[in-house]
């Protein structure tokens, strides 16, 4: 695997959250309560023996744990027990682990802390009455637990307390460097109890070898064809793309997409080496609804109407990189069809023309109080990602907004700065963020809608509700939808929310992203829909 962005963020399962973490380490080296094969869109039992048994109106979940699953050395004689999963979930609330989703998805478990704790807390609602039984009690029914998508996240990767507690002390847990593995692979040399530099070097190298403790017959999820997987980081994207396409036994790693020229050439001459599928994510332009005139729905709709989404897509490589979006929930997600499918909701005329409609935009501008159909106010602060191709897209947005007289104070800054200093910081008062996007956590549209539009999610920093939407009606509907335990009812509820959000044009969703994976000729690459169609390295193989 050739990586261009540096690989995983952390070795600690409690920290894993991003696509690369899942591809490189989660699916390959660990097992969780539930998991996904490349054909699954709902979670399948992995360490669990079946789906949760619900009682107390969906507020109590009883899960039985598979027996005979061993850890890797130096704990090879130990088998996974329910108490290990209890500890793993509890440590996700600890500040020393730095988990980003425990409070969102596990916050309603009885006894769960409301803020990160200095040490690993005892959560009374997570119980292990015996080694093979895990009981989770919640204060209200939690749909993402009952279904149980949120129990397929890496916080349920078992971690034995008696071994890990020593590494979880202090301000920053070091368990990742000493972890034990349950999956088919382990980091090379980690059987000694410490990950050596021959197995992992930040941003440079990650080597996975077979885990001798793993037994295929106990694992319903992973065939694990490869004998060894090497991730090499820090590659130039153009060079790495060429190496993969012309080389042997190589696959694309954490590429956003190959460079445009290579993608175009590849799709004509090396088509069999490319695999393209919806990523379960989108790209959008965030409009800060607390800043005038963006607080006016007609002004926002004018922007939606003037945006040429087709032109924006061309800045990233054209049709191969995604479908032009007409609403927020992306294809293959529950609720996509109910929210309008590919065509979207016909009532939202501002999304009707993918090439933009200046006349319609001007009519909305008039409704917004600009009689000439052109904006006449002060420039709007706009902060964009400075890296290609995001910068090309942002510059196209700037040009298109000029069609209705909108002038921008336009700033391009590095990707991380854009988020952490501007677009996710309400105090920065950025009006327009053209380089935003969101991806699902799992096949449930709650993970698309809530983080981006739920009012109480507005926080001083790391604010993912960039548009600062705080609509009491929508907030209530989201709370209610989160408690639904029936998958079909959940899909309908979240689709209804998508329809309302889209009609308000809080954000201009312009693309439903594709994942573009490519590999050498002798590789059979298998994509993994659960993880945005990045590779499932346990299902991929060599010819």
């Amino acid at each position, binding site marked *: 695997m050739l990586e261009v962005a540096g690989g995983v963020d952390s070795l600690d399962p409690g920290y894993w959250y991003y696509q690369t973490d899942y591809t490189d380490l989660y699916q390959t080296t660990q097992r969780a309560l539930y998991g996904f094969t490349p054909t699954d869109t709902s979670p399948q039992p992995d360490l669990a023996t079946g789906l949760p048994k619900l009682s107390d109106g969906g507020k109590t979940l009883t899960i039985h744990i598979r027996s005979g699953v061993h850890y890797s050395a130096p704990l090879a004689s130990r088998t996974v027990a329910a108490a290990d999963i209890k500890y793993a979930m509890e440590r996700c609330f600890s500040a020393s682990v730095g988990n980003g*989703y425990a409070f969102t998805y596990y916050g309603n478990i009885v006894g769960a802390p409301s803020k990160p704790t200095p040490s690993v807390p005892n959560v009374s609602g997570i119980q292990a009455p015996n080694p093979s039984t895990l009981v989770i009690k919640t204060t209200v029914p939690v749909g993402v637990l009952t279904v149980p998508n949120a129990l397929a996240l890496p916080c349920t990767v078992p971690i034995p307390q008696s071994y890990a507690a020593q590494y979880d002390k202090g301000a*920053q847990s070091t368990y990742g460097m000493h972890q034990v593995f349950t999956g088919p692979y382990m980091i090379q040399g980690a059987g000694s109890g410490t990950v050596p530099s021959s197995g992992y070097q*930040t941003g440079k190298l990650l080597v996975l070898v077979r885990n001798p403790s793993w037994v295929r017959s106990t694992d319903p999820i992973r065939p694990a064809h490869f004998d060894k997987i090497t991730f090499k980081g820090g590659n130039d994207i153009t060079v790495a793309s060429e190496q993969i396409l012309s080389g042997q036994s190589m696959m694309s790693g954490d590429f956003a997409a190959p460079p445009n020229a290579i993608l175009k050439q590849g799709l004509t001459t090396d088509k069999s080496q490319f695999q393209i599928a919806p990523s379960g994510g989108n790209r959008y332009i965030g409009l800060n609804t607390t800043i005038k005139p963006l607080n006016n729905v007609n002004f926002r709709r004018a922007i939606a109407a003037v945006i040429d989404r087709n032109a924006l897509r061309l800045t990233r490589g054209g049709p191969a990189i995604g479908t032009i979006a007409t609403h927020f929930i992306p294809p293959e997600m529950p609720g996509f069809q109910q929210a309008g499918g590919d065509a979207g909701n016909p009532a939202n005329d501002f999304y009707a023309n993918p090439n933009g409609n200046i006349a319609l935009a001007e009519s909305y501008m008039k409704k917004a109080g600009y009689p000439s159909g052109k904006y006449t106010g002060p420039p709007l602060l706009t902060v964009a990602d400075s890296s290609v191709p995001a910068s090309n897209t942002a510059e196209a947005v700037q040009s298109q907004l000029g069609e209705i007289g909108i002038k921008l104070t336009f700033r391009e800054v590095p990707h991380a*700065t854009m988020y952490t200093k*501007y677009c996710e910081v309400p105090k920065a008062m950025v009006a327009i963020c053209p380089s935003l996007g969101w991806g699902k956590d799992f096949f449930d549209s709650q993970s698309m809608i809530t983080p981006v539009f739920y009012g109480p999610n507005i926080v001083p920093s790391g604010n993912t509700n960039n548009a600062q939407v705080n609509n009491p009606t929508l907030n209530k509907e989201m709370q209610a939808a989160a408690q639904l335990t029936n998958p079909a009812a959940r899909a309908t509820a979240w689709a209804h929310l998508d329809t309302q959000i889209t009609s308000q044009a809080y954000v201009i969703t312009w693309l439903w992203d594709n994942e573009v994976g490519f590999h050498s000729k002798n590789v059979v690459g298998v994509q993994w829909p659960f993880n945005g169609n990045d590779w499932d390295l346990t299902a991929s193989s060599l010819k």
Partner: protein
Amino acid sequence: MVKYIIRRLLWVIVLLFLVSLMTFVVFYLLPSADPAVLRAGRQPSPALVAQIRHNLGLDKPWYTQYYRYMKSLVLHFNFGYSYQSNESVRTEIFSRLPATISLTVGAAVIWLVLGIGVGTISAVRRRSKFDRAAMGTALVAISAPVYWLGLLSLFLFASDIGKFPLFPGAGSYVPLTQNPEKWFTSLIMPWFVLAASFAAIYARLLRANLIETMSEDYIRTARAKGLPERRVILHHGIRAAITPIVTAAGLDVGVLLGGAILTETVFNIPGIGRLAYDSILAGDLPMIQGTVLIGAFFIVMANLVVDILYAFIDPRVRYS
């Protein structure tokens, strides 16, 4: 001479202190990524961000953070820990230093040999076909960006993606201690790519200096005394003309030891330059600070070495 060196070393310390202070201040004044938010994941609660900020010491005023950093650096030679990976900055820098030294030293040998050789011949055979061809080629080499030249050489000569597969391609670097032969072959292309523009500049510089020197009175005197032309050029001409080359070489090597960012990036050599680049993008202050200090250290030390070398090369220079 010893007093001079001690005085210069004391200035090195002052300079490094000022560089570290400026880096710190610049990091706080200019917009850069917030390390606490970066580390807190995708949907962090304010409490988690605050806790991480506290853990990293980012909730203290910048001067307190700077004091702690310097104290740790001076007393324990501890550069701190990366905000991004939590790894020791010292360990990370020293693990990457051999790659950068390998790249820089090899390239320096090439550009000095080529630059001095071609510059001398061009000066001696002024307006010859060789001179015109060499100076024309030098102009191309100076104009070609390293990044472009690197990609071009990979697409032409890399064993994996090249049209004429001659040398190992990007990502093939192995440490000298691991496999000397692979180390050497993996660096051939990066060395030449990095050396190209330097060799060209040095050739042009030396040619101009040597032409001027060869018209000096003392050269005429040497010839009048009956010295062979070869001795006149090598012992009298080049010795005087090479002083600016030594200055430039010292500084260039110092700068590159601080990281040859573009070459390391194109050829995926895990060196200091690549580390600095990644750290800047990630707003990883301890790592930025470490790479900047190492870079500054090499530059001032190279400068010092150059000044000392003057005394040996140029008989007119004496230190007191």
